[in-house]
């Protein structure tokens, strides 16, 4: 048993960290550190810097620009991105549509879309959830009717993250509503957001931020060549995507950065007795508990990674565990940050409180933590 990274892995980490520190623009780093909203141009600027370096899509096959890194190197890279405070790499193109096209796309689709995803020419968003179909995704109703060489799409998507920035949306739509099983008759369509009939309406979150949207489809004409895989087999595609979740789900790097920030911040705040807040035993215990929780999650993550490397098996329900614990830690860190502020002292209570509000999303999105428990219950425990 050896919990340490190998010399090569440590050297790789140093290389990644050095490069990120030297190449992440200061204004973007500041925006992330101050929890400011990042726009389309911010996100694409950083995307293009990484694409130029050849590091934007490590998991893709080499011929499409992948790095050929193993799972541990990919994990280290993701952790370092989080730790340096990089803007998020928007997953919809890189980790969702890209892998789907690589697995199910026609040669023409691959040629048309993959280079543009890689280079950050197209900004993608995801059209899965609907007002009546959240966790119960297979109940979706948005309809696509085949008319000659087109589909006519009618319906509504919701929670469309960064839909207002997007050039393209990949959608699950119902192409056949006569099937007895709800998972059948669903198809996977690629839709140009500039197509007439699409309306994007912002959904402003409680912190005032604009991240998510409703997207309405009113007789939207989509060329049939934009169908991915077979008509009616969209659920197979969707399931493949779910299994494609990355080992970076626990957000260890970002949480390490937030923890260091919280410690420094709390040390600079005074408690009621005039001593630094970090010396208040009641606050201190909460701080230590979240640090220990993060240590445990990191080692758990490495254990799964080590197993994956050895067995060559996808992580399966283990990712659900990382999601549950990782998001709980992110929420606790944001909550402690808010609690640490001296309301009359330095630091903005409102800013940190807004961050706290915003982080409540983490246990809801990407399969709520209750859905993750259902997955573990079914897949791992056989209940």
């Amino acid at each position: 048993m050896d919990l340490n990274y190998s010399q090569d892995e440590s050297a790789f980490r140093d290389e990644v960290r050095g490069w990120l520190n030297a190449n992440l623009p200061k204004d973007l780093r500041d925006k992330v550190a101050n929890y400011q909203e990042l726009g389309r141009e911010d996100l694409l600027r950083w995307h293009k810097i990484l694409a130029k370096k050849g590091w934007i899509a490590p998991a893709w096959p080499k011929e499409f620009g992948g790095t050929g890194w193993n799972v541990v190197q990919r994990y280290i890279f993701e952790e370092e991105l989080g730790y340096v405070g990089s803007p998020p790499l928007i997953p919809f193109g890189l980790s969702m549509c890209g892998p789907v096209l690589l697995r199910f796309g026609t040669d023409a689709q691959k040629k048309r879309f993959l280079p543009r995803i890689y280079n950050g020419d197209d900004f993608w968003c995801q059209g899965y959830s609907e007002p009546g179909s959240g966790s119960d995704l297979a109940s979706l109703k948005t309809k696509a009717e085949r008319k000659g060489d087109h589909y006519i799409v009618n319906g509504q998507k919701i929670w469309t993250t960064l839909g207002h920035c997007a050039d393209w949306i990949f959608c699950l739509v119902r192409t056949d509503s006569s099937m007895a099983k709800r998972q059948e008759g669903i198809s996977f369509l690629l839709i140009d957001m500039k197509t007439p009939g699409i309306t994007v309406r912002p959904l402003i979150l409680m912190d005032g931020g604009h991240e998510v949207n409703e997207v309405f489809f009113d007789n939207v004409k989509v060329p049939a060549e934009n169908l991915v895989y077979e008509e009616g087999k969209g659920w197979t595609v969707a399931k493949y995507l779910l299994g494609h979740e990355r080992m970076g789900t626990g957000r260890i790097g970002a949480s390490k950065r937030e923890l260091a920030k919280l410690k420094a911040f709390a040390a600079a705040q005074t408690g009621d007795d005039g001593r630094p807040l970090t010396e208040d035993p009641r606050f201190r215990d909460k701080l230590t508990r979240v640090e220990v929780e993060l240590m445990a999650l990191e080692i758990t993550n490495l254990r799964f990674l080590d197993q994956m490397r050895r067995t060559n098996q996808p992580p399966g329900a283990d990712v659900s565990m990382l999601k549950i614990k990782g998001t709980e830690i992110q929420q606790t860190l944001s909550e402690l940050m808010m609690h640490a502020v001296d309301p009359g002292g330095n630091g903005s209570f409102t800013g940190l409180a807004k961050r706290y509000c915003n982080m409540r999303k983490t246990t809801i999105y990407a399969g709520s933590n209750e859905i993750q428990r259902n997955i573990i219950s079914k897949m791992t425990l056989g209940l």
Partner: protein
Amino acid sequence: MNFDYNEEQQLLADSVRRFLAKDYGFEARKKIVASKEGWSDKVWATMAEMGLTGLPFSTEHGGFGGGAVDLMGVMEAAGDALLVEPYLATLMGGRLVARAGSDAQKKAILPAVVGGKLKLAFAHAEKGARYNLAKVSAKAKKAGAGWEITGEKVVVLGAPAADKIVVSANTDKGLSLFIVDGKAAKVKPYVTLDEQRAGDVSLSNTKAELLGAEGKALPVIEEVIDFATALICAEAVGAMKFACDTTLEYLKTRKQFGVPIGTFQALQHRMVDMVVAYEQARSMACLACSKSDTHADAKDRARAISAAKIKIADNCRHISQESIQLHGGMGMTEELKVSHTFRRLTMIAQQFGDAEHHLARFASLDK
């Protein structure tokens, strides 16, 4: 990076598991617990034969030179089977001798421990000291060529069975360690909540032999307690695994309202949280055992062990409490093993410092 046991470690863990499954089942253990001594000569002899009593001692003394990681699989198996033999107590006493003793003392004691001929205990805790390792009132004074100790030690694990007891006491130069003959100490034996044997040890001008440098015992004691803490973290993981497995089995078989209760989502999610807690605990036990074996310095070791013990203590509570709740009334009875596992997990959460103690220690090391 590698989280697996090596081949030797795995083979040993498997053979210990097989032995305990065969000779240390719930019914067999019940008989041992109910016996006058509270441990089994026969089991101890087999453990020695299997090399378990020699595992962490140097080859020079007949041992195998292993560390905490080598003991992990053994301790997991012990946690699963709820071993009540004075194993941990003997390992602790032996490690104190190995760390502090003179060559002659090591030669006199360790080969006998390795061979299963000598059982040890460590008498350290006193009334009012709680988990503070530096707080000792027992006093030692020179008497001729040797020493005499006077003091009261409490909850000394394995004391009733111990042939020799390592005792801490203060001299003019500070905290020191001594070896006392088991028969020379007055031991008031009792059964602990988790059905192990312990005792309060009374010493009144009791003849003793100095172990290690006078006044320099605290760092040695801290190291050995950290080592023992790492071992009970691994033991906890074994006990937690049993608690999770048996509860899952119960959810699948127990029927109410015409269906297995495991079909209820309220229970499924609680079961999942138990398993998540188990995985987190296992990770921290790996950390504790590795850091016990390999660390930059004492602070690095202590920090990792305290972090592990915080998590293990919290998760011992979580998993033990939930395992009883999900079993319902049956979980409350002595008849099910899970209620005995509950008791061991409850004790591990406190042993060598509860979560609060280690939270304070972790914070004090973070400066």
